[in-house]
């Protein structure tokens, strides 16, 4: 069996949708779109606040929260899982701030120490109590979006909708509603916390609120994409869109488009190469980013090179006083 199957454009396009696989494909794509959109929307605000890696930290440190909930309750109760995730998220943010503010350890090191510790606790819990925790390490590493439970579904207007998809849709609705509701507060606090304080907007509330929404999104995406790939879902749509537009509303809209593209492209890639669908979605996102980075009409690399060639030796005339 060879590693890379021969590339046939027609089968690349159609493979996921024939041979009776279309039903699971559709749910994978829908789940992917939901996860990518929810993450992408929240991720925009993370990138704006230069907190991209805090997203990484939280996605890692939710693991012990989820593992402990599984251990204690022995069930997959959604409410408990959300509670565990929110608690773990807040503990992470608090710990990072505590170490950074109370000691001389700098923020980057504080972040690194905190999330790796919590993640290590999570991994140990899962591997020591492997029989009691319904979560394996592969799922942590690259998610199980390909195995959506069909046995656990809900009939809705004549269609059997898998339960995880419903949950994710609910989470996306909630997140979108929250972001719309607090859009201007988030915008102001992200841009200029001093101004926000003077306007009477509670900056730390906005901060912790965003962190809670982030934890919420991550915990629902967790089983689909795992703890590490989720960082890509958070950052990539926002960063790629920011290369194409400079206004936040447009960037938000574009990130939704990219979220859908990742999901569909990823599925096709995964079917062709027969690899992890979540991984393939991120690879697709990374390729799209590279493409946009190359050809972006405003900040593209090609544009930069062309300008450099043209302007070799020439300088703009200085604006003298």
């Amino acid at each position: 069996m060879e590693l890379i199957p021969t590339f046939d454009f027609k089968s690349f396009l159609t493979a996921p949708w024939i041979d009776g696989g279309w039903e699971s494909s559709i749910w994978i794509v829908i789940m992917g779109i939901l996860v990518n959109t929810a993450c992408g929307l929240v991720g925009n605000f993370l990138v704006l606040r230069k907190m991209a890696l805090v997203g990484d930290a939280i996605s890692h440190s939710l693991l012990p929260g989820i593992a402990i909930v599984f251990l204690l309750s022995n069930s997959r109760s959604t409410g408990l899982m959300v509670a565990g995730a929110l608690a773990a998220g807040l503990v992470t943010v608090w710990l990072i701030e505590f170490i950074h503010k109370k000691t001389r350890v700098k923020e980057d090191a504080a972040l690194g120490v905190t999330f790796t510790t919590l993640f290590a606790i999570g991994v140990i819990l899962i591997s020591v109590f492997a029989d009691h925790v319904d979560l394996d390490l592969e799922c942590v590493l690259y998610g199980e979006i390909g195995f959506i439970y069909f046995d656990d579904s809900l009939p809705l207007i004549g269609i059997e909708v898998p339960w995880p998809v419903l949950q994710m849709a609910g989470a996306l609705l909630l997140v979108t509603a929250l972001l719309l509701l607090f859009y201007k507060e988030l915008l102001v606090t992200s841009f200029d916390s001093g101004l926000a304080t003077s306007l009477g907007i509670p900056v730390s509330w906005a901060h912790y609120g965003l962190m809670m929404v982030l934890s919420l999104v991550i915990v629902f995406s967790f089983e689909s994409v795992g703890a590490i790939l989720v960082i890509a879902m958070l950052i990539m749509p926002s960063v790629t869109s920011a290369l194409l537009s400079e206004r936040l509303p447009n960037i938000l809209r574009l990130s939704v488009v990219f979220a859908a593209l990742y999901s569909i492209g990823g599925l096709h890639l995964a079917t062709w190469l027969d690899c992890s669908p979540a991984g393939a979605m991120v690879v697709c996102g990374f390729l799209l980013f590279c493409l946009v980075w190359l050809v972006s009409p405003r900040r593209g690399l090609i544009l930069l090179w062309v300008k450099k060639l043209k302007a070799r030796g020439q300088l703009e005339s200085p604006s003298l006083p």
Partner: protein
Amino acid sequence: MSPETPLPLEIHDLTVAYHKKPVLYGIDLEVPAGNLIGILGPNGAGKSTLIKSIMGLVPSSSGWVKIFGKPYKKNAKRVGYVPQRESVDWDFPVNVMDVVLMGRFGHLGLFRRPGRKDKDIAMACLEKVNMAPYAQRQISNLSGGQQQRVFLARALAQESDLYFLDEPFSGVDAATESAIIKILKELRERGKTLIVVHHDLTTAKEYFDMLLLLNMRKVDFGPTEDVYTYEKLQKTYGGRLTILSEVVDTRRKRSSDLPIEK
């Protein structure tokens, strides 16, 4: 100084650009030895960029720089540098002595460790800036003025002939400021050349022998009494100077109107 001795600093047509926008444009400069020189100009005029590009820390788009008649790399040992205080992390795990010893590293070259002689030189430099009692102190436990003194001591330990100082008086107490200027004047008496980025117009006149007025290009360079004129400063600072002087005037008036609290 005999005419065949090369000048401490010679700049020809130096242009520096960030993202194709020039920050410094066509700077020509010939600095005679044994002077205390101030660089004056508004914010964003490229004062720090000028000294950084002389030392090759910022790439230049055109022009050349000669230090004592040679390119900078060849004569780096003859140049001392005091960067802005904010440019380093003061929580770094070193003590005052370690920082001053760094001034000797250029003379040591690769691989060699500082020895007894270097430690003695560093200690002597610390004494000069009145920081000897603090030699074993961790650097985060210093005040702003003390930090600046440590940086000055490090530059002294370089035992150079030409010094660049980037805003050495910003955020220091009055005692430190006068101590620093005293040391700078002493160095000048010993024939060293000192080039200081400065932002305070009021003290510039008494501190420096020569001034370089800079605003992206060289506005003027010469002895202080020739250069420190209203027209030339006006030219350097553009319209801003008039606003500045007005503000200073009104503040003076207002403060004299106020009853002084006893």
